[in-house]
């Protein structure tokens, strides 16, 4: 629980304490004069960014119950706001709280409206608070804070009158069936017989309740005297004396220390210490009379704290994630080290085994690969003899054809009808370009061409030949080229020669 500055302001003084989350400490009182206000301002300077919870303990307060038609949401808010402005025109410190719904057919809503009718009492303190810039959580009426005591002490009597002693006087708070109904503050005048005066006030209150029909004359009213300085020990006896419809019990300092949990030193520091403690315990009392302009700083403070809390959550999540990752990394590194050790053991074992092996110039895999590659290189090597044999066998059948030159190659060859001619699809083959000369009768061009074609077909039929074709004809008969010559030479009787080239490709593997 967060640190709070809890205050209780009355017409004559202001009590302050620091709620640390579990205990009330540094309880001090400040008189309503210049010295007191200066001391209070110094206290505020020392409590940096601590939210302030202010209790108002004054006779200038008003509580009333109103029944309004049942509505929800914005309609309800607007209606309640209109009603509040109608009831309390002269003060900004007002509020309303839905108590219950009527049992009747209309099921109307029953509201408690409350206000501090004379805000001038708190203005000096509020000015100092506002100037300090501390976030003000709200202004809460003392009776609403007192309700916390009934829960802590488990006071479940149907008609309960809490009588408590404050710096401002004696406060009587009537609680019926666990719900707040009426509260009165009576200042203690100097010189009064306090016990008798208080007893008289309580008896009057009883009669007032009967008059309002809040209680019946035969109902037993349980009076609980909250007496933090043990000065009202005799009050219970005085109240019930001669009254059958009144019962009284006393809660002294020891009871409050043991049952409520407040520190004795804090309790003794101020008559408002008990309520400061109860205010500190409550997260945010629901009955807040402060106007929104006063609590805007607290809203910012809450959002700021929310953002910081979310940041802390994100940081914690990231830290947890990192911790898991670091743990996992360390585990993996340890695992890698373990496997590395095992690998070294296996390698040592292998070294031990290989000591008995014959010496090798290179590792075994390279040894095998080298020998295999050398074998493949040797098997791929070709001499031109196979190609020359194929050509020679064919040319033997054509005595009029003479070989004038040959260019032989062994390399990658892609078949012309293959889809791709890239080196990856090409195969190693032998190929040869034959430069040939044909002796033919003069003017017998058709006969010469027929002989050349027959020769090429003959070459192509050889079992070792993949392809044979004419690379260059004696005459360029293509329609796209030009053709020149003389018919006069056709009359000569001497045979003529025609040069042509043939390309032969052997099958892969030959």
């Amino acid at each position, binding site marked *: 629980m967060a640190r709070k500055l809890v205050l209780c302001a009355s017409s004559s003084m202001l009590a302050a304490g620091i709620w640390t989350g579990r205990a009330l400490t540094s309880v001090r009182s400040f008189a309503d004069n210049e010295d007191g206000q200066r001391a209070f301002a110094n206290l505020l300077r020392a409590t940096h960014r601590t939210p302030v919870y202010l209790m108002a303990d004054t006779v200038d307060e008003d509580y009333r119950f109103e029944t309004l038609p049942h509505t929800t949401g914005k309609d309800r808010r607007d209606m309640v706001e209109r009603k509040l402005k109608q009831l309390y025109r002269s003060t900004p410190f007002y509020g309303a709280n839905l108590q219950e719904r009527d049992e009747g057919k209309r099921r109307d809503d029953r509201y408690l409206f409350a206000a501090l009718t004379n805000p001038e009492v708190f203005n000096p303190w509020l000015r100092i608070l506002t100037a300090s810039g501390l976030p003000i959580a709200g202004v809460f009426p003392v009776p609403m804070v007192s309700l916390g005591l009934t829960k802590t002490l488990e006071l479940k009597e149907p008609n309960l009158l809490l009588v408590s002693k404050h710096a401002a006087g004696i406060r009587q708070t009537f609680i019926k069936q666990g719900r707040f109904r009426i509260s009165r503050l009576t200042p203690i005048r100097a010189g009064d017989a306090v016990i008798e005066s208080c007893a008289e006030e309580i008896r009057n209150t009883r009669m007032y309740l009967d008059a309002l029909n809040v209680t019946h004359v035969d109902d037993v009213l349980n009076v609980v005297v909250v007496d933090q300085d043990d000065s009202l020990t005799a009050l219970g006896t005085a109240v019930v004396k001669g009254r059958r419809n009144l019962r009284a019990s006393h809660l002294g300092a020891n009871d409050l220390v043991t049952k409520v949990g407040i520190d004795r030193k804090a309790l003794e520091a101020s008559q408002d210490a008990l309520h400061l403690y109860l205010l500190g315990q409550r997260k945010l009392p629901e009955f807040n009379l402060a106007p929104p302009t006063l609590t805007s*700083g607290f809203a910012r*403070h809450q*959002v*700021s704290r929310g*953002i910081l809390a979310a*940041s*802390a959550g*994100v*940081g914690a*999540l*990231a*830290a947890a*994630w*990192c911790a898991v*990752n*670091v743990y996992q*990394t360390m585990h*993996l*590194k340890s695992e*890698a080290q373990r*496997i590395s050790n*095992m*690998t070294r053991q*296996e*390698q040592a074992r*292998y070294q031990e*085994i*290989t000591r*008995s*092996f*014959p010496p*090798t*110039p*290179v*590792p*075994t895999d*390279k*040894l*095998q*690969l*080298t*020998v295999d*590659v*050398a074998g*493949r*290189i*040797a098997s*791929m*090597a070709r*001499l*031109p*003899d196979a190609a020359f044999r194929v050509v020679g066998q064919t040319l033997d059948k054509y005595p009029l054809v003479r070989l004038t*030159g*040959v*260019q*032989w*190659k*062994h390399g990658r060859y892609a078949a012309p009808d293959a889809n791709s001619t890239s080196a*990856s699809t090409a195969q*190693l083959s032998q190929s040869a370009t034959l430069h040939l000369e044909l002796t033919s009768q003069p003017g017998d061009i058709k006969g010469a061409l027929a002989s050349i074609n027959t020769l090429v077909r003959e070459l192509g039929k050889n079992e070792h030949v993949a392809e044979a074709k004419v690379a260059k004809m004696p005459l360029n008969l293509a329609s796209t080229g030009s053709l020149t010559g003389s018919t006069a030479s056709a009359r000569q009787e001497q045979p003529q020669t025609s040069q042509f080239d043939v390309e032969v490709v052997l099958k892969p593997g030959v």
Partner: protein
Amino acid sequence: MNLSSQDLRALTKPLIVSLVVAAAGAGLVVFSSQAVKRSKGEVAAQESALTEARNRVQQSGQEKDLIDRYVEPYRQLERLGVVGDEQRIGWIDALRAANREADLYGVEYDVGPQQPYTFVSEVNAGPLAVHQSIMKLRLGLLHEGDLFRFFQALAAQKAGTFSVNACTLEPLRVDLAVPVNQPTLHAECELAWITIAGPSAQEGKS
């Protein structure tokens, strides 16, 4: 909800803190996640190395058989000059001897610089470094059969391994004024002398 300048001023610091925390948190998470990823990769690499080491131990018997089978052929290749550095003097000597044995009229040669072997993919050399040096030959022949006898004689010298890439044969004009035994054909051939890298410096030490 409308935020006033006062609200923004009040929320600036927590927002900066939250941004710093978020950025730092994200950075740490990313950094540590990458460390986990790297460690996983390291474990995978170590597991792979362990598997390999275990396989080598398991296959050590088979490895001994391979050594017995391949070490002598490998030594033979080293002796022939196929494995290791080029033996260019040996090639020239082999050319002279082959010319003499084939009764040719002399061989002119040019040897180019060493380069990667052209058909390395065809021989599936894998990581093995295979090189070739191109030798161009020009020689006179009496008959085309002399060319094959010359290559057979060259191979018989065992000066290395070579493959013939190309040959061009052209007839020579015969000078009738000169007595017999003169070349009738001119041949130009391209050979590739092939060498395979021998043991590396590290392998030689081990």
